[in-house]
């Protein structure tokens, strides 16, 4: 007799099927903030609002949203979230802040090197000041006398006259100077940078050292650098926040593992996502992880501390979450456990109390003045999440005006900034290609052997049609580079589907060259650049000897992008390199991408030839004087 035949069963089916019912998801309301935008939606990436930063007016009645790719500041009613106005600013704004009085809103426009000054009473641009190279954030001092502007490309902070915009001085900051935060009393400015500082280059695998970054502390009254707070092993530092009493400072940052062979991903092997804590509450600064054993808080960016100093909120752009830290628990942990903490992926259990899912690529965050709500700018789905800080739930989502449909290009961009494809969501494309550029460090990838073929990370700008890819030219196209290779050796986990890969490829191929800071208008050259161009194109050396075709600069670095897409032995092979043939890199914005050569062994363009070209295999250059080499470099900077 079968067992089933023996059955006397009276299954309360309702029990099981009810238990299996999926509870209706609690969805927060979506509010649409339609604005009087001037741009007609076309589906191109530029038309998407792309909210990057967010802040409140001094009276708390208005919300200002910096919308990067629509070149605008959207002004919303802070209570109804209704759109009040869209203010057109310069190209690709990145940072903004209110003046001390709140009457002015300063906006940095990165790709036209200007600062928009908005009158917050009329919500109109009242001045546009030319500033430095790729201005990325701005602050006015308490006295209303100076405006500080962080310039990403020139690695400095310009000090401007707050009335005229005239530049008074420049302060050396970290490489890729980008974000600034005032201390609560306004006496100091804390500036961070996204690329690690260049260090003295030493050749060979035996001399590889960890990246170093800093928080540049500026005396805002005197307009001078007061201190450089080292951030050891950090590469990619973003926003800083302070508690209202000024006793606790927090910086969001990346902690890459570029010196360890990238053999696998689990256990924080590629990146950790950390906070550096400093201030009187801490004592000596400490770094604490946000990650867990099997979940990561990829790419922490925005930071805010609640007015009562009970919570730290951190937007994590790659993980699409806001991480909530209990400050009391955090301080107790730090004061009761000996550091360092960053190697312990179970440390965050002591102080992280919530991970709140928000929209795609959350960046800037802002607390209401009473701390009851946290607003989160979700850059890649054009929304602002509103979080109830008592419950840690998203209670509203504000949809900014823009194209309703996600274009393939936009989808590709979303994929680029999404960390969910890597094993356990540890990192994404944008971890190594910060803001779709590079990271300024060298990596040890596994398939070439441990400690072998150390490779410098290359810039993505305008890489379309520069194939093959990789320094050894091993990948014939972007789909190969970003598809199976990335799945196997980077993500170590199932990759995107083929349609998503196609969209990602479309996005990467569309990344443009940012404005070249050394290039004059109308294809003009300075005299030095002109002399350098002549050297670049020469066919004979100074002594009249013909330079073999393959040893001319212009042979390998030909064309608009400066590559003939072939591989050569330029004499830079190290003992730990598996081969001597190297893909000819494009020269696009070469001035920005130090260090140089395939393994980053040349700290400057000059070192390529003064240190690493003893046998003239990397072009005939040993006949050049120092001035002539300088001229050549001046020309290269225009590429």
């Amino acid at each position, binding site marked *: 007799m079968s*067992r*089933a035949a*023996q*059955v006397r*069963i*009276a*299954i*309360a*089916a*309702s*029990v*099981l*099927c*009810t*238990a*299996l*019912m*999926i*509870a209706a998801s609690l969805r927060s309301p979506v509010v649409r903030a339609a604005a009087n935008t001037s741009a007609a939606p076309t589906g191109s990436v530029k038309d998407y609002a792309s909210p990057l930063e967010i802040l409140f007016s001094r009276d708390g009645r208005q919300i200002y949203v910096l919308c990067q790719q629509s070149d605008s500041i959207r002004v919303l009613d802070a209570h109804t979230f209704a759109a009040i106005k869209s203010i057109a600013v310069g190209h690709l704004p990145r940072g903004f802040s209110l003046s001390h009085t709140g009457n002015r809103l300063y906006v940095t426009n990165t790709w036209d090197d200007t600062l928009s000054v908005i009158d917050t009473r009329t919500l109109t641009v009242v001045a546009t000041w030319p500033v430095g190279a790729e201005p990325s954030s701005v602050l006015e001092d308490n006295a209303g006398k100076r405006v500080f502007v962080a310039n990403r490309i020139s690695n400095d902070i310009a000090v401007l006259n707050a009335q005229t915009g005239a530049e008074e001085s420049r302060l050396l900051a970290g490489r890729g100077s980008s974000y600034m935060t005032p201390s609560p009393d306004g006496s100091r400015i804390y500036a961070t940078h996204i690329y690690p500082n260049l260090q003295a280059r030493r050749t060979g*695998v035996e001399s*590889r*050292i*960890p*990246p170093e970054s800093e928080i540049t502390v500026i005396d805002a009254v005197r307009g001078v650098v007061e201190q450089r707070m080292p951030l050891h*092993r950090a590469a990619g530092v973003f926003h800083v926040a302070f508690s209202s009493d000024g006793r606790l400072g927090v910086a969001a940052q990346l*902690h*890459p*593992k*570029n010196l*360890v*062979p990238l*053999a*696998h991903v*689990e*256990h*924080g*092997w590629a990146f*950790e996502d950390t906070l550096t804590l400093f201030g009187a509450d801490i004592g000596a600064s400490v770094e604490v992880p946000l990650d*867990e*054993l*099997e979940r990561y808080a990829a790419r922490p960016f925005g930071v805010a501390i609640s007015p009562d100093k009970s919570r730290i909120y951190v937007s994590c752009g790659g993980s699409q979450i806001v991480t909530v830290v209990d400050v009391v628990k955090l301080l107790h942990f730090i004061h009761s456990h000996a550091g360092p903490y960053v*190697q*312990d*992926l*179970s440390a965050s*259990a002591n102080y992280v109390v919530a991970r709140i899912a928000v929209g795609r690529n959350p960046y800037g965050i802002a607390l209401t003045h009473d701390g009851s709500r946290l607003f989160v700018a979700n850059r890649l789905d054009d929304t602002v999440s509103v979080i109830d800080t008592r419950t840690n739930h998203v209670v509203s989502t504000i949809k900014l005006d823009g194209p309703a449909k996600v274009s393939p290009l936009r989808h590709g961009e979303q994929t680029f900034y999404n960390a969910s494809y890597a*094993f356990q969501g540890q990192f994404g494309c944008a971890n190594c290609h910060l803001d779709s550029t590079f990271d300024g460090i060298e990596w040890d990838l*596994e*398939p070439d*052997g*441990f*400690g072998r073929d150390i490779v410098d990370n290359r810039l993505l700008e305008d890489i379309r049609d520069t194939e093959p890819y990789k320094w050894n030219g091993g990948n014939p196209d972007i789909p190969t580079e970003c598809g*199976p290779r990335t*799945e*196997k050796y980077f*993500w*170590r*986990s*199932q*990759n995107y589907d083929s349609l998503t890969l196609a969209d990602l490829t479309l996005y990467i191929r569309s990344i443009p060259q940012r404005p070249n800071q050394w290039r004059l208008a109308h294809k003009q050259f300075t005299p030095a650049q002109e002399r350098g161009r002549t050297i670049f194109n020469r066919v004979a050396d100074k002594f009249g000897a013909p330079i073999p075709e393959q040893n001319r600069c212009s042979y390998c670095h030909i064309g608009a992008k400066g590559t003939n897409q072939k591989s050569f032995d330029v004499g830079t092979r190290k003992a730990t390199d598996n081969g001597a043939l190297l893909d000819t890199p494009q020269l696009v914005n070469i001035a920005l991408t130090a260090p140089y050569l395939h393994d980053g062994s040349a700290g400057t363009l000059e070192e390529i030839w003064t240190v690493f070209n003893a046998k003239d295999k990397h072009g005939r250059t040993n006949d050049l004087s120092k001035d002539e080499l300088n001229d050549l470099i001046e020309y290269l900077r225009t590429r």
Partner: protein
Amino acid sequence: MFALVISVLIVLLNCGFAPTKQGHLEAPIVVTAAPAYEPLAALHGGERFPQGAQLLLMRDSDVQPLIAGFAATADADVSYDASHVLFAGKQHANDAWQVWELTLADKSVRRVTGSESDAVRPLYLPGDRLVYAQRTTHGFQMEAAMLDGSAVLPLTYFNGSAMPANVLHDGRILFESTYPMGDGTTPEMYLVYSDGSGVESYRCDHPAAHTIGRWGGRQLASGDVVFTHGSSLAKFMSPLAHETSVAAPSADYDGNIIEMADGTWLMSARSKAAHHYALMMLKPGAKLLQTVVTHDSEDVAQAVLLLSRAAPNRHPTALHDWTTANLLALDARQSRDGALASAPTSVRMEMRSTDGTVVTVGTAPVEADGSFFVKVPGDRQIRFALLDATGAVIRQERGWFWSRRGEQRICVGCHTGPEHAPENNMPVVLTRSTTPVDLGGAEHVSITGGH
């Protein structure tokens, strides 16, 4: 004889769910019914169903054999789209267990494995693959294969048994073995990728009482892994390096939790060893188990839902075409086991064959920063011991592990635990040479004195 305790209904009504029509079961359940069920027997090479077993399909008020024409069936696993069921079956009582696949639409079955020894506990893997346990001369070893039975790939390589428990969302296979692996007797949970690489303990807070094991792990939607620990349940959570207890009545649990949409759990349990396992329901935090299905003369176990589910991530294998593997330790001095009595200067590797013969393959230097870099034989059980300058063993691995052929793997230290991330330092051993010391097993190698 089966019976259902109706009080469960009351529990759920109190949760605010409206009952659907009684007698109508929207989510069928497949269970294994067996006169005797010894869930851990296979870890020691034994038979889990010594008196046979049968898969039953429970739908609404009806219970029927899931599959006709078999002398024994067990170990059901439902495909991600709920169209097929993998199971272990014997067509005749004297047959070995083999893995079969049932197509639910037409009730057809086909054999997947083709060995002469037992093949049990199949689980679906992404990419039209499966993993199962294959009986060998040295215990049950896990194998992966395509669903048509081709491309068989051994995943485990040690003297002992490994039984698949669950495929985690991240694609790793959670399996049961014993601790220390290859030598111990205490059930413990381990992880391995679906190409056999990356084997490690899920957590390294191995229970101090070595007679109380951990097994029956199943991952919930939250990512937590709930499992049986002694006479209760416990779980691993992403933020923690150690297990946390689960409030549950004391009982013999079979693990293998089914998580319902409302958060309640279904699992098999029994109050005493003399009783039979029954299908029970537990609302996390509740003090009482609610009986769902019992049978007065059989165990009811291994419940699975006939529901579609999300597929885990596929693991893209990156193994090289080598016969050996490379292992890099970043700092062998680091360990959960505390500080070493003296500085290690070399590391000794031993290799064990399936007949239990242990040979010392050789030694390699340990650098001042604790790093060493060695080439080891692939797919062989190995273990390391740290030696001081006098050649004395100052720390010895407790169990055995393997590296797959073509695997390149890095350890932070010696038994540091999965919570221990590497620091971003250049290992000194790689500054000396990027060529690993060859402990590939061809001949004895002795290189000592790392610093």
